[in-house]
């Protein structure tokens, strides 16, 4: 019905008493997500919005509520620490919304996650929204619609733009996933694509890439070899100058590689239509899907 989440997803929010953490926890709860606990060290014993118990540690949330998923809204200097804690407590899915996490912190945390078999989404990402199932992060629920299309993106608001257009065209989503634009992220394009390909409910999917790295090229290769479902792509940053970081730490054309043109070429060579404009995504998908 979705990738990475299902009815058994039980959520703890790390940083639930913060401004952003609180706001989005309300939103997640309002969407029916099972947010069973929050964590803020020193706030153990309090209740969030008079209902969700707050603990000092993730371990306590796991012990008392069997949570298996954490959504992290803590400041950058505490983000990696929160990821370690969630993984150590046994969370198998960790969504880190925090922007501005040092890359070296992420390099260090990755093997810890691998050892514990935990999946990280992010950091610096909008998270995941599986319409009708759960919202883990900050994707606005107003624009989504249940349906057969998967969407994975390195971007935030550009994702909303595309989801909005999909929903407006009647193309609902199995899962909308923002993986973030940092150089080192937990769940990659490839991971999402493999999951969408295996998900029986996902009939087609959209990949929103951007300049920097070669994740799109790798995805193209994989899709060519393994994916029969219709896929459409879009790459942001055709006009980005080389050597300049475009907002995301990972969105940079360096040493002449990671350009939008290269990515477009690789995707097209794999038979994946690359929309020129965001508004071309829906028609392109509709066209390829008909075949």
């Amino acid at each position, binding site marked *: 019905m979705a990738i990475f989440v299902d009815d058994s997803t039980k959520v703890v929010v790390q940083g639930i008493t913060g401004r952003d953490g609180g*706001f*989005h926890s309300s939103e997640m709860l309002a969407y029916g997500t099972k947010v069973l606990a929050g964590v803020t060290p020193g706030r153990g014993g309090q209740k969030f919005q008079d209902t969700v118990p707050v603990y000092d540690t993730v371990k306590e949330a796991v012990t008392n509520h069997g949570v298996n998923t954490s959504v992290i809204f803590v400041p*950058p*200097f505490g983000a990696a620490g929160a990821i370690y804690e969630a993984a150590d407590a046994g969370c198998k899915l960790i969504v880190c919304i925090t922007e*501005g*996490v*040092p*890359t*070296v912190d*992420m*390099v*260090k945390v*990755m*093997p810890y996650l691998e050892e514990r078999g935990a999946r990280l989404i992010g950091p610096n990402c*909008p998270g995941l929204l599986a319409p009708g199932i759960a919202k883990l992060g*900050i*994707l*606005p629920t*107003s*624009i989504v619609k249940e349906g057969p299309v998967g969407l994975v*993106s*390195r*971007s*935030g*608001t*550009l*994702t*909303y*733009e595309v989801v*909005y257009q999909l929903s407006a065209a009647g193309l609902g989503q199995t899962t909308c996933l923002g993986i973030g*634009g940092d*150089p*080192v992220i937990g769940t990659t394009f490839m991971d999402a694509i493999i999951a969408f390909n295996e998900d029986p409910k996902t009939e087609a999917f959209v990949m929103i890439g*951007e*300049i920097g*790295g*070669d*994740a799109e090229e*790798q995805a193209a290769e994989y899709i060519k070899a393994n994916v029969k479902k219709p896929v459409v792509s*879009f790459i*942001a*940053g*055709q*006009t*980005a*100058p080389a050597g*300049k*970081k*475009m*907002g*995301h*730490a990972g*969105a940079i054309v360096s*040493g*002449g590689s990671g350009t*939008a043109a290269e990515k477009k070429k690789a995707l097209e060579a794999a038979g994946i239509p690359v929309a*020129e*404009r*965001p*508004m071309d995504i829906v028609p392109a998908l509709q066209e390829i899907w008909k075949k």
Partner: protein
Amino acid sequence: MNIHEYQGKDIFTGFGLPVPGGSAVQTVEDAVASAKEYGLPVMVKSQVLIGGRGKAGGVKFCETVEDVKKNATNILGMDIKGHTVRTVLITPAVDIDTELYIGMLIDRNTKRVMLMASAEGGIDIETVAKDTPELIFKQIIDPRFGLLDHEAMEMGMRLCPDDIKRARQLASAMQKLYVAFIESDASMAEINPWIFTPEGVGHAIDAKVSLDDNAMYRHPDYEALRDLEAEDPSERAAREAGLSFVKLSGNVGCLVNGAGLAMATMDLVKYYGGQPANFLDIGGSSNPEKVVSALNIILADKEVKAILFNIFGGITRCDDVANGIIAATNSMDINVPIVVRLTGTNEAEGRALLAKTDLGTADTMDEVVKKAIELAG
């Protein structure tokens, strides 16, 4: 953040890498004084945040004080690919037997630091990578264990297969470079070239280091390494205001929330035949002050003939954003036309607010871009 050679060398020295001494100076007098201090011959090396300094005449070998005087005079103030040389590094010239390349970067695929090394040093490593990738050796470093002795030695022996002493020096240098990389939160660190003298003594005679902006809070002293003069004034203002901004050469100013959407908006300006004046991500905030800062930065560019806002209110509510834009524009004296596209959460309320102003509006991303191009003329 990219830092200068002399700053990178200071970091290297702090982690025990062998770097020849040197002084960064800004006048010919100081250049001469430093040259006398270190003893001739010396190198006079322009300190600019761009490659190709040597080809541009920005790196000179000096055997006499006269040479130093002449070259420092020429190089200070020189323009290298749009970068004005304000500082030169005076450093003792060392005899070079061999030039090698050692570099580290974040490898996105393995999510680890990758060591790259090549016996083809001193030249553009990207060219080597493209033309003869087999001459570049790579080692992925497990952050749990660091660069292990045998991993470093294997690299050292590949680069100097017939000289175990040199191989050992390289191995040690690579291990120190890794510690420097991690401890200084680098995103890239290159020694190109690493040289051996004819006597077989190794030195890092260049340093190219990028530091992770996200980690600056851990290194408050690194803020001083930022070359404010080399920075574009508008990019500097944006950075200080906490905005992601990149100056371009077009005439359509773009204020967008979100980096991906901002890039897509620029691309769309180009698609419709316009020229974006900038990349600017104002983030999720609806704070009027931030909007004011953003507008000031864009308006400082006299080429800008029209400004577009492309805002997708996801978390941020459109009415808040509309209020922010109205408050900002009211507080300023703006001579270029503005057109606003607001969509998402509380879109209707936002639009209603804008309708009471003389700001232009648009329903879609396409429309706002087209209108802005038209307004820019």
